[in-house]
């Protein structure tokens, strides 16, 4: 059987979900954001909640997320996505509300909003993309930057005496009473992608069951910021990021 004979709608295994628009994503080649956007779109499509879902976009590379996933979006000021999501969820309690934030947004300028939204147990899902760097602004050091990791503002590596320790904010959030599901996933290989998709689905389900805040951290790469190729970034992440940010469920009640 030739390749052209196999390429037939009857033999389809996997295709881009229609919820993901045809607009080409502006992310750098190999960026983890694309995979997470795709998973979000697939989960929303499979659950059939396109009309009931509202996303809150951050400041950071994902600021243009509204161009790529065909649902309702609101763009929040830097770090304020959980506060905006709280407002939306309280006014429209039947909607599925999620925030999509990076580590600079969630763990630096938005620490207060994040901690208090989780502490109040708002029925929202927080998707936290942790690549240990400020990607959009040129690869500066972020709270989650690893000890010794080189960035444009720590060219000799992060020095804990000067810059403090990497902030494991997901572990912190797992301690709060308001969170019901706190997990750390990655999207660097097929198994990771499948697990991350299940985690996102669980986050939406928890929000329907009014169980509290779900926090889904995705340990990600920023190959442009890290100055590595996409494949080398994945290897670097497995070797260096995973020991500091181990994958798995931190809380599941």
């Amino acid at each position, binding site marked *: *059987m030739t*390749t052209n004979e*196999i*390429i*037939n709608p009857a*033999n*389809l*295994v*996997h*295709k*881009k*979900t229609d919820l*993901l628009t045809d607009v*080409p*994503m502006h*992310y*750098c*080649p*190999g*960026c*983890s*954001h*694309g*995979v997470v956007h*795709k998973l979000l779109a697939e989960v929303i499509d499979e659950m059939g909640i396109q009309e009931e879902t509202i996303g809150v976009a951050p400041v950071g590379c994902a600021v243009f997320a509204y161009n790529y996933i065909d649902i309702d979006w609101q763009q929040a000021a830097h770090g304020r996505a959980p506060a905006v999501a709280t407002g939306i969820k309280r006014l429209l309690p039947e909607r599925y509300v999620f925030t999509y934030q990076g580590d600079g947004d969630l763990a630096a300028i938005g620490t207060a909003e994040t901690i208090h939204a989780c502490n109040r147990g708002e029925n929202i899902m927080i998707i936290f993309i942790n690549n240990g760097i400020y990607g959009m602004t040129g690869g500066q050091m972020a709270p989650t930057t690893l000890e010794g990791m080189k960035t444009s503002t720590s060219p000799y590596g992060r020095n804990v005496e000067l810059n403090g320790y990497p902030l494991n904010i997901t572990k912190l959030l797992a301690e709060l009473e308001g969170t019901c599901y706190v997990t750390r996933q990655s*999207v*660097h*290989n*097929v198994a990771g*992608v*499948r697990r991350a998709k299940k985690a996102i689905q669980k986050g939406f389900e928890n929000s329907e069951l009014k169980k509290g805040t779900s926090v889904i951290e995705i340990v990600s790469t920023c190959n442009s910021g890290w100055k590595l*190729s*996409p*494949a080398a970034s*994945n290897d670097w992440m497995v070797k260096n990021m995973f020991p500091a940010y181990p994958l798995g469920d931190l809380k599941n009640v």
Partner: protein
Amino acid sequence: MAKIKGAVVVDTERCKGCDLCVVACPSDVLALSKELNAKGYNFSYMENPDACIGCAACAYVCPDACITVYKVKLQD
């Protein structure tokens, strides 16, 4: 025994040539082309189409959702 044969179609204009699908493919089917697309990226293509098993590993890891996967079971 049934043999599984697959095929992938890459949206070459959407592809950014990040190489992640090439790394993820367990059967060494994909490679980056020498040609460029309109944006100047070396897009991914099936260099070795006969080896494809339609596992969709490439499509799962693709950050730009530009891979469509097809699969058939052949009886011999």
